[in-house]
């Protein structure tokens, strides 16, 4: 494709504006986290006049941030790993077997994507409370309950994407493994999973991110001991004071793991989408 000259300018201006729009809040997040409290409460300044790292120190004691951090890490890791394992099995079944109910299953799973979360929030809350008293497993206000909830959130997208990905892997590879004496599950583990690694990593990132960032269920389904970052960060706005510098510092710190992970692995997400979902 020969690029005309004007395209260069359109590119610079277009990408420049998009970049500005994208980066401004991030810039403010970073610079405000190193300002003292009085500088974030008064008039806004682009360049920090006084630089202090006190917000990064104080944020741990204003709210029990470390505790929320651990909760979020446990919930998101377990939920995403289990969700991906479950999605791999389901996607393999949909991709490789023609069984009665296959279409119904795919449609049901995908259609849960369109449910407004608010529709099943309260019923789920009631189920967890009652299940807890019935079988003695505390699901409400526990990390287990949150893990179970979150792992279903990413399931539809994960299954959908992995089906596309598995479909792009030649069935001949499975057959070769079966000739070597593997059953269908052996073929899945020995052939399909290794060939689909980029897709699986992509799905894993997606699942982790969606669990790490969820707010609605976290705000209803947790108590002080199981609270995650999504709700915990609201603790910086008290009746008397809003610690904006600490909010920005905390936002920055809780974002680093997911953003770093995402950026490191984003090429897998693009590869996964290219091979699977958008085909």
């Amino acid at each position, binding site marked *: *494709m*020969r*690029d005309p000259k004007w*395209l260069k300018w359109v590119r610079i201006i*277009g*990408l420049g504006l*998009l970049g500005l729009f*994208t980066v*401004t*809040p*991030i810039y*403010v*997040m970073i610079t*405000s986290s190193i300002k003292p409290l009085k500088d*974030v409460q008064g*008039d*806004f300044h682009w360049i920090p006049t006084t630089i202090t790292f006190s917000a990064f120190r104080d944020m741990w004691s204003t709210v029990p941030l470390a505790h929320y951090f651990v909760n979020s890490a446990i919930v998101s890791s377990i939920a995403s790993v289990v969700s991906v394992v*479950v999605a791999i*099995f*389901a996607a393999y079944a*949909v991709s490789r*077997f023609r069984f009665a109910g*296959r279409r119904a299953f795919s449609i*049901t799973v995908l259609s849960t994507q*369109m*449910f*407004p*979360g*608010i*529709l*099943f929030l*309260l019923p*789920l809350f*009631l189920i967890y409370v009652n299940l807890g008293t019935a079988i003695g497993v505390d699901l409400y206000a526990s990390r287990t309950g949150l893990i179970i909830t979150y792992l279903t959130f990413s*399931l539809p997208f994960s*299954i959908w994407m992995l089906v596309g990905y598995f479909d792009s892997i030649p069935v001949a590879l499975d057959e070769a493994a079966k000739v070597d*004496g593997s*059953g269908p*599950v*052996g073929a899945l583990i020995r052939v399909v999973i290794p060939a689909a690694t980029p897709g699986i990593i992509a799905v894993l990132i997606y699942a982790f*991110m969606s669990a790490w*960032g969820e*707010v*609605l269920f976290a*705000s209803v389904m947790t108590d002080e001991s199981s609270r995650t*970052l*999504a709700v915990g*960060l609201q603790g910086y706005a008290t009746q008397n004071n809003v610690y*904006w510098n600490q909010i920005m510092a905390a*936002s920055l710190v*809780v974002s680093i793991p*997911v*953003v770093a992970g*995402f950026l490191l692995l*984003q090429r897998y*997400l693009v590869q996964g*989408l290219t091979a699977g*979902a*958008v*085909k």
Partner: protein
Amino acid sequence: MVVSATSRPGGGRGSGDPGGPPPPAGGGRGRVTPRLWVRLRRLGLPYLLILPALVLELLVHLIPMVIGIGMSFIKLTQLYIRNWSAAPSAGWSNYHLAVDFNAPVGRALLHSFFVTILFTVITVALSWFFGVAGAVLMQGEFRGRGVLRALFLVPYALPVYAGVITWSFLLQRESGLVNHVLVDQLHLFGDKPFWLIGSNSFISIIVVSLWRWWPFAFLVLMAGLQNIPRDLYEASAIDGAGWMRQLRSVTLPMLRPVNQVLVLVLFLWTFNDFNTPYVLFGKTAPQEADLISIHIYQSSFVTWNFGTGSAMSVLLLLFLLLVTAVYLVITSRRRSDA
């Protein structure tokens, strides 16, 4: 492996592990075990594989949804929240209340519904446009391309509360960047406007949602562009097509299947989005930006009227089902015509 084997103890043996049933056979498995058993296992295996996903979907989505529909037919107020099976039947009265547009509850719901539609249409259209612009302009090789691509994806990677809370700081009346730029530096307004209450809040929620969602459109469209065969461009270049012509005749038509899914997903996510308005405005959104998910949340949890809240959710679901069905029918027909 472990998950599927333990989730159904009886059938666990049939999961096809190497070394499963009694004679751990290699190639001659069909000879050693009865044929019927093999066939049963073949038939059962896909069901066993989808079982964990099915159980989880049932537990977290489908059963609660059915219960939610049931709840919309009872008078579930805070009196009955501990013992909700004792709540009296309400018949259709929750629905009557929700769609009685002459009464305050119905009128507020209708208002919220239209606000949400307008918000969703604008946000999805702009997100798609930004996504296409970004993805198309990123085509080809130039310096800093990788860095820029990573940068564009950051808002999508940021946890919603971290990104949106930063926006709420930017939009503060006294100490925010937006008013600093618009009023102090550009002198566009005489007095500092409010952005998080009043009519401007509608603009704010669109800008923040756009900031959050366009990188997703960008990501998907970029992947879609990679799937367009190179020779299409070469062939059209030989025919003398310029850049604009290629964009119109090759790039955009080839992206149509991607767009079909992308626009639907963006629509559903934006329409149902609770996190963005909740973090930006808190538990009660301003009138002008009273998005439906926040509205229902407030009708349920703030006024403790879960029956009406459930009825509203059910109506919302019916609406979304209708939109999705119509959308899929229209777009699929167009696709098969093309």
